[in-house]
């Protein structure tokens, strides 16, 4: 999300901000965008998108605009919202952690679409939808070592991604979620378990992200299994 959706909306936002804030619908359901995980593992979809994630309920981080998401700001924001347990720690579904004076819960979810629509997750959980930081993590299991993998991600708005604890991709600035926005340098997916973690920050707008692995030729890597435990 970016600048609301049009100039008129922008102008209106200057005058009618309280009205806009009341206009958002509230849903108690996660469907159709998410469903609880019910199977041991899943596969990427036919385009390679990773749809199974452990997502932490949003951390409040108020921002009136996304224009300030410089690398310095985003790195600092994520550092201050760092998760306990180290960069490759895998939380449990339902586990809660203290963050910013609140208790936030991890949810193991399957995304209904290629992208994980975090806005609707927050809305469905009755949590803040604007001015938030989300953490997401997943386990990538591979039957072979894949040395020419590239993490291809898109997010709304800025995000950072770590594979097996190493920073792999970063998207700064006021971003819209588009497929393959940033494609990482070559990384190795090890045989066995690999841990992918991401953090997404957004001010106003429709938070979401999509992620997949592609090979050197840009073809999606689909012979993987995705798990949350």
């Amino acid at each position: 999300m970016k600048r609301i959706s049009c100039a008129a909306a922008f102008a209106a936002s200057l005058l009618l901000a309280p009205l806009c804030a009341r206009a958002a619908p509230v849903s108690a359901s996660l469907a159709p965008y998410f469903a609880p995980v019910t199977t041991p593992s899943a596969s990427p979809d036919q385009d390679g998108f990773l749809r199974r994630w452990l997502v932490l309920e949003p951390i409040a981080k108020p921002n009136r605009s996304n224009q300030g998401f410089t690398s310095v700001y985003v790195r600092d924001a994520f550092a201050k919202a760092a998760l306990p347990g180290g960069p490759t720690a895998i939380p449990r579904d339902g586990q809660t952690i203290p963050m910013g004076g609140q208790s936030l819960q991890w949810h193991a979810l399957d995304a209904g679409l290629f992208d994980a629509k975090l806005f609707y997750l927050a809305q469905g959980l009755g949590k803040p939808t604007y001015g938030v930081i989300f953490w997401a993590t997943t386990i990538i299991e591979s039957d072979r070592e894949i040395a020419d993998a590239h993490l291809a991600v898109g997010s709304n708005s800025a995000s950072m991604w770590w594979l097996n604890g190493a920073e792999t991709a970063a998207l700064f600035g006021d971003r819209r979620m588009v497929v393959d926005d940033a494609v990482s340098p070559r990384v190795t997916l090890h045989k066995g378990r690999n841990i992918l973690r991401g953090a997404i920050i957004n001010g106003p707008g429709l938070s979401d992200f999509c992620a997949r692995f592609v090979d050197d030729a840009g073809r999606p890597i689909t012979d993987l299994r995705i798990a949350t435990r």
Partner: protein
Amino acid sequence: MKKHLISALCLAALAAGGAKAQLEGEPFIHDPSTIAFSDGQYYTFGTGEGGLVSADGWTWHKGGVRPGGGVAPDTIRIGDRYYVAYAVGGGGMNGGHASNVKVMWTKSLNPKSPDFAYHDVGIVASSDGKEPCDAIDPAFLYADGHLWLSYGTYFGYIRMVELDPATGQRVAGNQPVDIAIDLEATALMYRDGWYYLLGTQGTCCDGPNSTYNIRVGRSRNPLGPYVDNFGVPMLKGGGKLVWGAHGRGLGAGHFGLVDLGDGVEKFSFHWEADMDRSGRSVLAILPLIWKNGWPVGQENLRPGTYEIQSERGGALELAVDEVRLPFDFRKSWFRNPADGPDKPLPDQTLEENSKVWPKGQIAVDMGDYMVRPHQHWTISPAPGAGGYMGAPYVKITIAGTERALAATPAGEVITVPAFTGASEQLWRIDQLSDGTYRIIPRGTPDPRAPLVLAAVGRSTARLVRFSPDSDAGRWTFRLP
């Protein structure tokens, strides 16, 4: 043909030397044949014996062996044979227009190769000196299983005959067909079901006063009728301009297609006069693009400062944080009388923009073009860096700085604080036949199948093998 009135003078000029000009080395030649690749080298032959040879298509030296003498040869490879056609006689020399086009073949153009040996095929076309044709300036086309040969000059008609691709001999019973007037130095191309007849109009062989220029017509049938973009038949003097005098080059003639594959086409020709080389006749190679089904000559990208825009959408830029322009956004929507009259706002300066740049290497990505200094790239010559098939290697730096675009061994693209001339900081900018460009690092493992800067993501550029089926490796250079 007029040029041969002074061909002896031209030949005398084919000596070593040369100052700055497009191609390097000693590219002195008149009537260059279509460039052929043989045993790792490029060859072109001209009027008189011998020709030029080059390892990279940029630096040319005297070399190659073409027996038989005569004028204006052409070369084509079919299977394991290189056919060479050339004309003996005619051209108006001593007032005569009786001439023979001869063909020979060899399996290698490299005189040091064990496969190098010319085999004479014999005469495939001729003029008797009285008929309205002068059988010189032959040009091959192998298309759709047929081998065609055009020939002729201003004295009467350009004619077409068919040869046997297996032997190089004239097809039995084949008769010449008149296809054009007011041309010489013809060439043929086939593309998308169209046959293209190119040729040179204007005055040859008068140094910087030569008005030579390259024209084209097309037909669905190799035997014509060929017409230009105005529908004027080439049998009535039609011909769409492809390329003429430009910059320091005067008198463009004797077109030859250089198809590099990947949708990259160039054309070879000679300048009657290279004004940077004493007005001598030299080989030149430039980009060829296509517009509405017509070939159009182009110059190489001029040095200068550009926005480099991906066909995927996104300007090449330093991956640095945004530096905002100071602005009271209220003024976009509400005006106060106290604001005073409208006035121009200054662009962001390099000094302002560069305050957030890290020292050392900086990554490169692609972003929305915002007319900011970290998005402006200066293309500059890199003397001594060489080139490849008509395109020089250049340096690409952030405008106003020495911060240079560089390739890494892993295929990533970064900038380094200062240009050092290292190979990984040199780039070739090839114009593609659709008018866009591809950007190739000098160190690409195979220049004939190069890695290019490509938009592998919406915001990510990396070096990958160029694919003509994708827009990822296509870029547009725009003036800021």
